[in-house]
């Protein structure tokens, strides 16, 4: 039960844009190198040096789940993830249309929808990411860590403001 509430955390500032996550995702799931089969995808703005890995957020109130006409999508609370039941799925791609993150993919080769399944609790994108731009953390810790980061920025800004006042 230790893994309950663990989430995939993206810190895009750390991402080097190498796309190893895309490669290992496709190899793990399909035994194939092809980013079109990857559940995670790094969006890039090369001319700005900006790289943002995008993957499923495993929403609580998931739009893909709500829109599915045959109830093929459900939440798996053990691993806090949203799963597709391919025995029920009719391949209508309504889920692809409604996902606000573009995280529900349509694989044109096998002609089926694919999404992140957190590799059953051992996400390979995380395992291979040396920078930990993609990480797998307890949801409680995520907000604590973010609070700490934000607090540090506030404290730094305060010190800089004080220095400016002192200079004036």
């Amino acid at each position, binding site marked *: 039960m230790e893994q309950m509430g663990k989430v995939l955390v993206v810190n895009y500032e750390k991402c080097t844009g190498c796309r*190893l996550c895309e490669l290992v995702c496709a190899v793990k799931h399909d035994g194939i190198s092809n980013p079109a089969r990857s559940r995670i995808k790094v969006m890039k703005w090369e001319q700005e040096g900006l790289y943002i890995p995008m993957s499923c957020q495993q929403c609580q109130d998931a739009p893909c789940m709500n829109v599915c006409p045959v109830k093929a999508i459900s939440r798996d609370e053990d691993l806090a993830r949203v799963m597709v039941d391919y025995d029920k799925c009719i391949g209508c791609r309504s889920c692809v249309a409604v996902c606000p993150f573009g995280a529900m993919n349509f694989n044109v080769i096998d002609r089926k929808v694919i999404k992140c399944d957190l590799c059953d609790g051992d996400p390979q994108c995380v395992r291979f990411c040396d920078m930990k731009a993609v990480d797998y953390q307890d949801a409680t810790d995520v907000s604590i860590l973010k609070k700490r980061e934000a607090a540090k920025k506030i404290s730094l800004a305060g010190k800089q403001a004080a220095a400016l006042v002192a200079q004036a």
Partner: protein
Amino acid sequence: MALDSKIAYIDLTTGDIQIKPIPLEVRKKFLGGRGLDAYLLYNHTKKGCDPIGPDNTLMVSGGILCAMAASATSRCHVMAKSPLTGLLGSCNMGGFFSPEMAWAGFNHLVIKGKAKHPVYIYIHNGEIEIRDARDIWGRTVTDAQWAIRDDLGDQEVKSMVCGPAGENLVTYANVMTGIKNAGGRSGMGCVMGSKNLKAVACRGTMDIKIAHPVEALEFNKRFIEQITSAKVNQTQGTIGTPFIWGATNSWGGIRCRNFQYNQCEYADDIEPEHLDEIATETIGPYHMTGCFGCQVHCRAQYKIPGNGPYAGKYDEGPEYTSQGAFCGETDTPRAETLLVSNHLVDQYGVDNLEIGSLISWAMELYELGIITNKETDGLELRFGNDEAVIEMIHRICQRKGFLGDALADGGIPASKKIGKNSFNYLIQVKGMSNLHSDERGTPGLALNISLASRGSDHLRSRPAIDLYHLPQEVMRRIYSNPVPYDGPLSSEHTEYIGKAWQVFWHENCYMAVDCLGICKYHTTFLGATLPNFEDWSKVLFYNTGLQLTPKEIWEVAERCNNMERLFNLREGLSKDDPEKGDVLNHRYHDEPARRGAPEVVGRLIEKDKWLKMRAECYEHKGWDENGIPKPESLKRLGIDNEPSHLV
């Protein structure tokens, strides 16, 4: 399956395109990448063809492991006859282009002919189209790539382009992809320009089946740990290649003022830590970027600081080579000069190393009075003049003025235009300028540059780990595998003994990695613990199913190196020719090093010892005393009947 990947023959004159499989027999003999390119070059170009004529053939390839689970399988190799040297032209770049080409169904392209007007080749899921590039011609490296994406309406397209330098037939123009991934040296961008070929664009979503995916993934994890646990790669991953600048400069291994000194007197301004302070978005743990699948992430990112004309421009690097080319050789060790020059060469698409080296050569000629204000159109081309460095980059890439136009032809043709004794001051091998490194204190490294197949070059066989003074048992372990060696080895980098074998070993090591399509930072180049033949044998099997022993991979490398030699000999290489030979500039033998560490000061390359070392290396390679492969060596390697036209 990687072994299903195709080869395409594209004729730009007629528009004819033929797509063929790559026979397994050919894969086993040459693997892919640079090795197979060398075979294709020998088979598909006519002897003595004009490098910028339609008969020259341009090979574009990924390695056999391209896009697979083997860490940094991103390398793209481009080969043709070089417009700079008239011999073998070859370059290698990272980025995301060759994996995209592999997902589009191709590992190798053979491009000949010349298009009637500017075109680009578009490769999409097994299909190839030649498209109009008249609107893209003239654009810079990055602008051209974004224009192609807009033209195709797909932001995921990856292109390999030539910049304005290639269009203007600067003989050392690069092929480029991304912001600064550069296939530099020997002018492959110039060959593109001469064919009216602005770019090759790829987009692919085709499967490459991994032979043993579970094992491949697990071995890759171990492989990556081996690579990233090396201190050298951790440092590269934090501040990039400039990490070696300080150390190399302090012991006296940096060419300064062309070849007058072997150390830059004050160079703290261009140290990576200082660049980090002054340039925004620059180096540091969260400001590095990498090529496909690579966990070393050695490329820094920066925006040019200050209020100058280039302030705020984004670029990647600068690499160690730019530090040497625009700061060391020209004696202008200032951060802004470095960042701006690096940006300009990336946008023009020209070899930083060659252009910086030629500018510093021209500076020495100017100071000696061999060229004057008449040739420079009034430019004060003195060492230490930062503006002159920037101005000369523009002039050369645009072929402006006498000197800009002359230098754009390359060192040897320029020395003929300038005349007098200018050639004596040109620091080159086979017509290609040396890296900014000074090898007078390191005979092994000097042997490496003189023998490199594409002209003076550090990436063909440099035994860089020689500088670490490794213990004998470590050297023995590395250099006695995968083929036995019980000759002498010395841990002392200033020695001559055993270096011939080390150069031979590294030559095969680097050829093997170029055939596989993996980055050299992932091999025994800068770190003694990094992977080599034994690891590649496994990684190759898990990914492709191809079973080659470490010794068989070594033999592939030997075979491919001999193919390159055969091409060079066919195109006029002769061992003692000062323009096309395995020789160093006389200054290596005549002028002792003046600065640096005590064991380096006063050193030069002793000619008799060096000649002995070269002869020894020929012998290791199975060549005769003239540097020509012996018939029995070629027979042993199965290339005694070339051209054999297997593909």
